[in-house]
């Protein structure tokens, strides 16, 4: 099981994941990709990081009582991911669909290490994960991401800025320090796991065109199951 994450998955579907710090534009790009896939009559399933009901309550309870240590925080997110993997990600992959995931295990590798857990330990923790077919990492300088996030709203959210880590009393400064550390980890991860690095400072259209080229190439040897080749869209992202 520990090796699973290093080997290609056995399912007929395709797993596409996007990674990057907040404000890197990854969600926008994934959304545009889905629109294109759906317009090409592919069956697409979309999933996000940290959204299952099981652990959400616990995380909320822990945050309120300030009970969450870096290790419990990390294991709780892995638990949540394990549940979503079994219930939301593997079934569509088995059904031969295209799964688009906004963030994946790499998010945990970056964030949890910055919070203090051991890099090797957290990589092993997610050893049960399915290896993505396409993994895109949107690399962006801190200043660009800060500008994008603040564009349209006034202040940074508490956890987004890593305020709980006590890096700085100023949310912007805290964000800069916290996200810089995350960025550092992402760079290591991208090299280690061979993520496709996207220059996220480029225009939206240009990035999207590049992404579609990458996906088109992978789709060449993708054969959707016959029951998925209907005309109408069953799943709407």
């Amino acid at each position: 099981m520990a090796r699973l994450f290093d080997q290609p998955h056995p399912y007929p579907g395709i797993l596409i994941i996007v990674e990057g710090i907040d404000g890197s534009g990854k969600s926008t790009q994934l959304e545009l990709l889905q629109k294109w896939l759906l317009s090409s009559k592919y069956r697409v399933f979309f999933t996000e990081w940290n959204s299952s009901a099981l652990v959400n309550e616990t995380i909320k309870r822990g945050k309120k009582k300030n009970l969450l240590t870096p290790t419990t925080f990390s294991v709780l997110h892995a638990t949540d991911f394990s549940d979503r993997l079994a219930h939301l990600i593997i079934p569509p992959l088995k059904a031969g669909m295209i799964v688009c995931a906004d963030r994946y295990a790499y998010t945990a590798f970056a964030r949890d290490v910055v919070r203090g857990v051991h890099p090797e330990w957290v990589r092993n923790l997610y050893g049960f994960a399915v290896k993505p077919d396409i993994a895109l990492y949107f690399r962006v300088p801190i200043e660009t991401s800060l500008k994008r996030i603040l564009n349209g709203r006034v202040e940074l959210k508490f956890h987004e800025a890593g305020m709980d880590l006590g890096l700085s009393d100023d949310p912007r400064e805290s964000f800069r320090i916290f996200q810089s550390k995350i960025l550092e980890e992402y760079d290591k991860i991208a090299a280690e796991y061979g993520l496709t690095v996207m220059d996220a400072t480029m225009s939206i259209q240009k990035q999207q065109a590049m992404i579609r080229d990458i996906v088109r190439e992978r789709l060449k040897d993708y054969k959707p199951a016959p029951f998925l080749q209907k005309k109408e869209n069953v799943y709407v992202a």
Partner: protein
Amino acid sequence: MSRKKNLFYGVGLPYVDATDLTGKLIVVEGTDGVGRSTQLEELKKWLEVKGYGVTTTGWTRSPLMGKTIDEAKSGHTLNFNTFNLLYAADFADRLEHEVIPALRAGFVVLADRYIYTAFARSAARGGDRQWIRKVFGFAVEPDAIFYMRITIEDLIPRVINSKTFERRYWEEQSGEGLDYWESGMDIRLGDDVYDSFVEYQKVILKEFDRMTNEFEFQVVDAAKSFEETNRALKQGILAVLEDEESEEKSRRH
């Protein structure tokens, strides 16, 4: 004598200073219904009379996770990997909030089950043994691990004659005599709950036996009477604590 070689089993907790843990961590392991909890109650009283500060810790009872695990168990929809991780989160919470602070304060920590229970349950469900050991790599190494060993033939009458067997049926919502999880009903190794219990517990006992050498368990024969088993446990615990005291004396001289 203390068997402890390292502070942690694996990579540990990089952000925790654990160099000043002066207490003793004593683990009592064994399968469901072997009589661990009754023994531990008695051991706690005995140590307190002797003047030791004692704290006990259980399995899946943390304030953070206890409720979540109960909910997850009643739902029956989690796969075993998710369960492994739920237990790991619970363990991490108790370790950092109960066990380590108590050890730092010089207490004797009596643990009713430890990571070996998680290893046995995971392996019984086909989980990767290396993976689960690394997941629990932040666990503090105990000073002693007492394994209350019993054969399946001795275990069955003990479980069926226990108070919980009837109470579970009459008073609890589940209406089961044998517990769903302790019978491994999620993997159904037999036609009914009894057959599954027997087959599942055989696998669990085998896993515990396998770990005896790996983790240097001190085997205590749990098929004997309560008093005899208790005497054996007390002897083992005394050896760990006296070892420490003689060390302290020699340091003072």
